[in-house]
């Protein structure tokens, strides 16, 4: 048992920290917000540094690493609120590689020319494991997809999107090509709280057999990996916001002493720190378990990580924002981005409550 990062993992973490620290500056983040929600220069730098190929198999030109390494990069994205569709692309790519579907896209993932999306969110109670898109067989293993998907991250930027659907009472994943305009595929860009690029997807389209992952377990795996990666982003978001808040309350003087010398302030900051450590622990445990010992325990551990990264990060970014007082109300001051990212990610693939309910179902019935 060794919870420390390996030397190789530490190199990746350091590289990502340096790369995002240097490049994801407030000015560039702001520019991406005012543009289409992606910093393409940064995206190219990530590709060049090899970070997009980390978790691709060596056969696809990747480094053959896994979810833990992917999370190390995701964490730095959260820490710098960097506008790049990293988790969306790399998690979907892992699924494609594993199931041997759409593997022609993988070199493009590695070099940054391909962006991938996964359409996990659902309307209503937002249960990604109960897809509302209906698939029907249209011969030769091909399927026809009909339905809608709300709030798909990176959709307006994506080359292709993985769409969960119900086929004959089981779930499938269908890879829908977006590289050319296709009749029956409609994308509406959405305005989001965090300015993340998202789109609404309307489908009435055929997908060839070669682009269908007809494995009922694939959706849950994609979902679990996605919430693990999102939780790693949340960890970074929480770290970044607490660092900013700690600096603010240590420097700002009121009543003749720094704000941090008031227990109401310091104890709230301490609680935020504790949440971050809870998230760090559960996220890396979940990523390791999903990668190395998939199964019920890994599922429960991942839901626990998702719970903490929703509930905990929500509390952390609220605290950090609140501790900034009026200073944080002005969006010229960068702390609000942590709040907006933290809150958006806390509901994106289910809320803290929905993760608890899902986990409760598992615990109560096993």
């Amino acid at each position, binding site marked *: 048992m060794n919870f420390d990062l390996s030397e190789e993992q530490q190199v990746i973490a350091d590289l990502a920290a340096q790369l995002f620290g240097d490049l994801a500056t407030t000015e560039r983040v702001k520019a991406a917000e005012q543009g289409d929600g992606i910093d393409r220069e940064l995206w190219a730098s990530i590709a060049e540094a090899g970070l997009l190929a980390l978790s691709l198999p060596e056969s696809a030109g990747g480094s053959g690493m896994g979810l833990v390494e992917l999370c190390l990069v995701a964490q730095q994205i959260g820490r710098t609120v960097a506008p790049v569709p990293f988790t969306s692309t790399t998690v979907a790519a892992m699924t494609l590689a594993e199931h041997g579907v759409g593997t022609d896209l993988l070199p493009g993932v590695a070099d940054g020319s391909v962006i991938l999306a996964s359409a996990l*969110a*659902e*309307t*209503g*109670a*937002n249960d990604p494991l109960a897809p509302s898109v209906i698939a029907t067989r249209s011969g030769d293993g091909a399927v026809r997809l009909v339905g809608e998907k*709300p*709030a798909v991250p990176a959709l307006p930027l994506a080359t292709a999107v993985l769409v969960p659907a119900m086929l004959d009472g089981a779930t499938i994943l269908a890879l829908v090509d977006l590289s050319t305009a296709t009749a029956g595929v409609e994308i509406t860009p*959405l*305005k*989001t*709280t*965090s300015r*993340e690029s*998202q789109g609404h997807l309307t489908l009435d389209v055929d997908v060839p057999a070669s682009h269908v992952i007809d494995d009922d377990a694939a959706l849950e795996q994609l979902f679990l990996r996605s919430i693990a990666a999102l939780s790693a982003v949340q960890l970074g978001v929480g770290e970044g916001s607490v660092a900013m808040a700690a600096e603010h309350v240590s420097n700002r*003087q*009121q*009543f*003749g*002493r720094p704000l941090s010398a*008031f227990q*109401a*302030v310091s104890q709230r900051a301490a609680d935020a720190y504790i949440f971050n450590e809870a998230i760090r622990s559960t996220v890396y445990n979940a990523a390791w378990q999903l990668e190395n010992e998939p199964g019920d325990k890994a599922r429960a551990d991942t839901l626990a990580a998702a719970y903490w990264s929703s509930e905990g990060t*929500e509390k952390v970014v*609220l605290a950090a*924002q*609140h501790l900034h*007082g*009026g*200073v*944080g*109300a*002005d*969006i*010229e001051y960068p702390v*609000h981005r942590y*709040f*907006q990212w933290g*809150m*958006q990610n806390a*509901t*994106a693939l289910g*809320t803290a*409550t929905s993760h608890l*309910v899902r986990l409760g179902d598992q615990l109560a019935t096993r």
Partner: protein
Amino acid sequence: MDISDTPEEAAFRAEARAWLDEHATPRGQSTEEPDLGDHVQRARDWQRTLHEHGWAGLSWPEEFGGRGLPGAFATVFAEEMAGFEETTGSLTVSLGMVAPTLMAHGTPEQQEHIAKMLRGEELWCQLFSEPGAGSDLATLGTRAERDGDVWVVNGQKVWTSLAQFADYGILLARTDPDLPKHTGISYFIVDMNDPGIEIRPLVQMTGQAHFNETFLTDVRIPAENMVGGVGEGWSVARTTLTSERSSIAGGNSGWSVETLIEEARARGRCDDPVVRQQLAAAHCRAEVLKVMGYRIRTATSQGRFPGPEALAMKLGYARHWVASTETAMELLGADATMYDQSEPWQYAFLNQFAIRLGGGTDEVQQNIIGELGLGLPREPSADRGVPWKDLPR
């Protein structure tokens, strides 16, 4: 103890309701205009309408243009108003803070403004907070120096709500830096059209610029525009700040537990026991605020000042706001993160900081409650008696 309306209150309620049914828009029948300027203009227009029909200044003394009714009648009218879209929220500083202050401390000439506020003609803003003086407001450093019949003011204010639309402002400035921080402050009325005033709007997460930075450069204020005497600014400001806290808790939030339940029903989430539990919790929080309102209304009607429990109102309101808008985010599912300034729940959620910070932070409220409600000794203060100019900064 009798929670029901008196016959007079019941008659007044019926009259108010009938008038509102005729003149106001039931909630949910208009879509909120995101433009702040339009919103402010509608508040002025509505206030003028209220005044024209005799519904303005219900509990204000008749000498100030009010109707001189007991406070309970104003509460009854507010309760009935809550079912309608119209709001005078943009006039909160004018009606809820400046007017009570001028009634208590103003000269007859200064009090002439009150009637204009009542007609929606004047919109006021509050120039109190500074970049370096937030919770510790009394350390403010904006200087006012006497020059014959005028005071010349230089400094910077911040978090000035609606300054870009305001006709007048109430201003705290330091008239004597050699005195300890609370005692060297004076309170002024300032014309917001003075050429020395520069306003820079601050955009918030909601996308609106409710707040502003206000820069004052050689602003010349006639001496007769000082409210209270030289160095009495802090005690005048206490009237304003007390009024501010009760205004925030009494405000029209634009959402209610009923609209939250409607949202859950519309989204088919009402069968979920976990959701029901959250809706019930929201109801319980609102119930406390409602009954606390009864208690405050009773105290006011009986000519008493509400007890320290009233201090909990603003804090309770802020906590209710935060928790209920979180429940709304829960209900919205994947829609929670969609926002372009027009969705009311997302707006309310993102606007929580204005609620929590306005009128003093939650923590400052808790400190006051500990002192006044429980008689706990104050935290030791490091700067008591120290001349303002010698404070560390």
